[in-house]
């Protein structure tokens, strides 16, 4: 493998299709970042299918891990009652915050969230003409969310934040597909991009294109899918804390009904 890679790397590149993309990126795609133009314009349909796959994977992960969740009746109850009823969790989510010197990364991580949000939107908006794009921006944003989970604990974050990653996935797919279908209104084929240069007061020259909407869809979907997957995995640790002594063969039954869990606990 290494030899093959070295052999190819040391030989000059033959004429490929890349010159086509370089020549037509600015003229037809309306963007200077050729990689981004290939992704959202020339190969836009491929990217649309790809983010669909990622969304499906995220929902599958969520559903597979949901099987290990507590029963629905314990989810519907408000969190303070549920915590009080189980008795083995702190009543106030603030009590789960790390103490001592571990507070320093917790506070820093919390300060990081707005900064990361601004940076991710910046990447999203400049992606068409400069390094950046929907994927990068979405990953920066979801990393900021995950940092909150890591430094402050799942309970504390969930008690404050109510984002719904499933809605983000849906909005992302709709936005990307809508950007593609919008080309029909201008009697062009699916996913044809259109670019405008508008001159707004205060802001000066603004570069607008329909691929920005497509990239926004990619951004929303990446944020939603990554956050959904990692939150589903984070809940695993929460659950193993609640019932650490459940034997493996009865685990699935017990997770479905907390009543059975207390009964078996009382019996043993």
């Amino acid at each position, binding site marked *: 493998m290494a030899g093959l890679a*070295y052999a190819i*790397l040391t030989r*000059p590149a033959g004429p490929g299709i890349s010159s086509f993309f370089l020549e037509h990126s600015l003229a037809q795609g309306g963007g200077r970042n*050729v990689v981004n133009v290939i992704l959202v314009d020339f190969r836009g349909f491929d990217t649309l299918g790809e983010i669909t796959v990622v969304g499906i994977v995220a929902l599958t992960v969520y559903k597979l891990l949901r099987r290990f969740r507590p029963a629905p009746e314990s989810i519907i109850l408000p969190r303070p009652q549920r915590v009080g009823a189980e008795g083995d969790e702190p009543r106030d989510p603030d009590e789960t915050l790390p103490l001592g010197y571990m507070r320093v990364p917790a506070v820093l991580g919390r300060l990081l969230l707005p900064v990361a949000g601004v940076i991710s939107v910046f990447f999203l908006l400049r992606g068409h003409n400069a390094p950046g794009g929907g994927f990068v921006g979405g990953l920066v944003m979801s990393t900021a969310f995950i940092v909150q989970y890591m430094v402050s604990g799942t309970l504390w974050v969930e008690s404050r934040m109510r984002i719904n990653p499933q809605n983000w996935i849906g909005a992302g797919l709709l936005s990307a597909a809508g950007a593609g279908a919008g080309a029909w209104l201008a009697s062009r084929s699916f996913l044809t991009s259109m670019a405008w240069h508008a001159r707004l007061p205060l802001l000066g020259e603004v570069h607008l294109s329909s691929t920005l909407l497509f990239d926004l869809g990619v951004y929303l979907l990446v944020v939603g899918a990554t956050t959904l997957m990692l939150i589903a995995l984070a809940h695993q640790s929460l659950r193993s804390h609640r019932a650490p002594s459940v034997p*493996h063969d009865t685990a699935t039954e017990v997770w479905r009904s907390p009543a059975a869990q207390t009964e078996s606990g009382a019996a043993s």
Partner: protein
Amino acid sequence: MEIVFALAIGVLTASGTWLLLRPRTFQVIMGLALLSYAVNLFIFGMGRLVIDKPSIIGADNATDPALYADPVPQALVLTAIVIGFGTTALFLVVLLALRGLTGTDHVDGHEDDA
């Protein structure tokens, strides 16, 4: 630079293949991840390694391919990274469920008696 890059691909492939053949599920996941890194680097390397030539068209609107890095492998590898990420996540969760159902992290679902 090419020899370091090629050696990195080789090391990643070798360790990925070795880990993929191990009996524990976590090792299999790590092996799959390393193997996908190797493949991604390989795809990326197909555009040849060039320095200071980002594939972003400059202010003079020059479109000579010799001035820019090859954008096609970069776009393809971005797609490959995302799909690889999704595959790893799905595989991880399937193996988590396997661990929960069988009570062992052996890939066969039961420990070897021998």
